[in-house]
């Protein structure tokens, strides 16, 4: 019999509930301040109750899933590889985010996922083209980012030197950079549209452009407009 997700999930919940119960019982019982009589059920009452509720239900579901429900939709092997790649890269993305910084880690994640998704599989024979594409795409993202920073700073200095408040506005400079990126992409798309007919090159181009556009767009919205502290990492400029 196939040991599918439907049968594994209640087992996982059983383990989680046992661990949760162990955690709940290990908690010290604290009561509200001023509750000398001990009327407050205490800080671990509900966690323990939830632990037992989960335990009971997961046992019920373990018995039920083995006897009644059967079968589940199978995932195609190619899709399974893509899901695994997405999960692994997401974990690496989180781990590398502070070190590599937002720009580099996001660009690499996006390019890799779009490239392999576009080919609907993760194949070893795609690796040489992918590696070349990844390097060029990362360089392209860095170029756009650097150009964006240059435009923003130039506008800021110009605004201060000429006393023009509009130029010093973070929203205005973000719009100027977005406009620059949009024009650049339009030019690139028009010039490559006819010359690139090869699927491999086209997928690489699309992955590179989307990765660069989305990375820069997110940077402008979250960092430049809303001042979110997106980690810089090794990109110090």
């Amino acid at each position, binding site marked *: 019999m196939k040991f599918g*997700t439907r049968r594994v999930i209640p087992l996982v919940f059983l383990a989680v509930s046992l661990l949760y119960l162990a955690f709940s019982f290990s908690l010290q019982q604290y009561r509200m301040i001023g509750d000398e009589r001990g009327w*407050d059920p205490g800080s671990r009452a509900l966690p323990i109750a*939830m632990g037992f509720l989960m335990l009971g239900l997961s046992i019920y579901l373990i018995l039920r899933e083995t006897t009644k429900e059967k079968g589940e939709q199978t995932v195609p092997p*190619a*899709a399974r590889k893509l899901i695994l790649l997405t999960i692994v890269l997401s974990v690496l993305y989180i781990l590398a*985010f502070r070190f590599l910084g937002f720009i580099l880690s996001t660009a690499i994640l*996006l390019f890799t996922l779009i490239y392999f998704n576009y080919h609907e599989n993760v194949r070893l024979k795609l690796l040489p083209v992918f590696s070349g594409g990844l390097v060029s795409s990362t360089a392209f993202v860095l170029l756009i980012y650097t150009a964006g920073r240059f435009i923003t700073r130039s506008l800021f200095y110009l605004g201060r030197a000429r006393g023009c408040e509009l130029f010093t506005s973070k929203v205005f400079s973000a719009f100027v950079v977005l406009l620059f990126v949009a024009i650049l992409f339009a030019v690139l798309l028009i010039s490559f549209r006819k010359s690139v007919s090869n699927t491999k090159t086209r997928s690489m181009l699309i992955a590179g452009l989307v990765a660069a556009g989305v990375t820069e767009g997110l940077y402008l919205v979250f960092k430049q407009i809303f001042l979110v502290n997106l980690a810089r990492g090794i990109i110090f400029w």
Partner: protein
Amino acid sequence: MVELLSGIRQVFNLNTILWIALGEVLGIIIGALPGLTATMGIALLLPLSFQLGKATGMGLLLGVYCGAVSGASIPAILLGIPGNPNAIATVYDGQAMTRKGLAGQALGGAVVASFIGGILSLIALSLFSPLIARFTLAFGPAEKATLALVGLTIIASVSARNLAKGILTGAFGLALAFIGTDPFTDTLRIPFPALLAKTPLVGGIKLIPALIGLFGVSQVLYDLERIQGGRLAPPQLKIEKVFPPLRKIASMWRIILESTGIGTLIGAIPGTGASIAVFLSYERAKRITASPRSKLEKVGSGCLEGVMAPEVANNAVTGGALIPVLSLGIPGDSGTAVLLGALLIKGVVPGYQLFSQNLDLVYAILFALLLSNVFMLTFQLLGVRIFPKVLSIPMALLLPVILVLSMIGAYAIEGQAVLAATFDMAVALVLGIIGYYLKKADYPTAPIVLGLILGGLLEVNFRRAVKLAGGNYLVFFTKPIAVVFIVLAVFSVVLPLIQRRRRT
């Protein structure tokens, strides 16, 4: 009057209008793309709304909500694939109309119907939510604790085909909500406190990363399974005569009113949602048009009546589902659960307090919903030939972009503290993976969110009620309103069991 003017001022300014318009456009696009849900759209834009003012942020999310509910009709009509469950019933007559060469009229009819449903349910929302909120004045800790229990049991029983699975995921959500610190004493309630006391886990599992993980990341992983051949080809159709004749709409007054009633009522029942409402209204319209005295075209034959009935109902759900959110703090569906989360994060407590102390915000929410509906009508009618083109965006491009948006969205909440923000990304990813496997095994994820939202309310009021009653756990059976809530909770659990037994 001052609050009304303040509410108007908070919405009718260039900044808010632009954000609502942006939300509407994004919502329509998200709704039009099969596999992407309204809830996911709201969850993804939640971090952005967090950076805006209360009214502007809520306006953005309401725009996404309305847009996504209405945009789902585009693929339902053109391709026979509903953009999300809200448009399941639109498929039948919508697709049939497209095959007859009436795609334009079907799309236009769906938009007008969504607008009518949205506006009529907004009127119901404005009339009923203050009345229900006033009722909450009588709520003490026992009533509040049992109300939270009702919200949880209803959503657990409705969202899952198997009741035990719904309750189990609800309990899991509550268990996660209890991690962090004790609400009364601020003492740590985390595993391995010696090791993890200085980590962001002390603050507990935050709602936004959890929402983004459960509705954004899990959806990406789920849709990856179907990525092969993931580009939908919109049919090359001539879209003409978009606006349905007014006389035709007027002749459907009964269908429109009944569908509005069904949508608003079903939406207002916590935990239900649009998919039930659209089928009920479609069936009702079928009966009305099947009557020998009816001069309307028969629903099911590929007519405007069959498109408009479910479309009125699904947008009527938007207003209806907001009634329990604003008045009781209990969401009507998973989309409004995220909207409730947005309100709570902004420090707004729904219920009587909202209507007595933040009436201007209530007005602002109502006006934002009105504006969202107006934008939905305008953009969808103007863009009736443009929006179907989004169907050709390949999923191969979309899914990685949604994944990164989810990650950065989760990060942006604690945007200034890099470590805490990175932890939130990890929470979103872990819950996304959990959500994906749960979805595959037919476990609902909405109860987890409800558990996270209502966990604090339940615990604080449960403990307070027992303490005030001198340690008497039977206090919940001594208060009439609490007893009603307990009966409702039991009823919501027992009813599906009886229905199943009858079926078998």
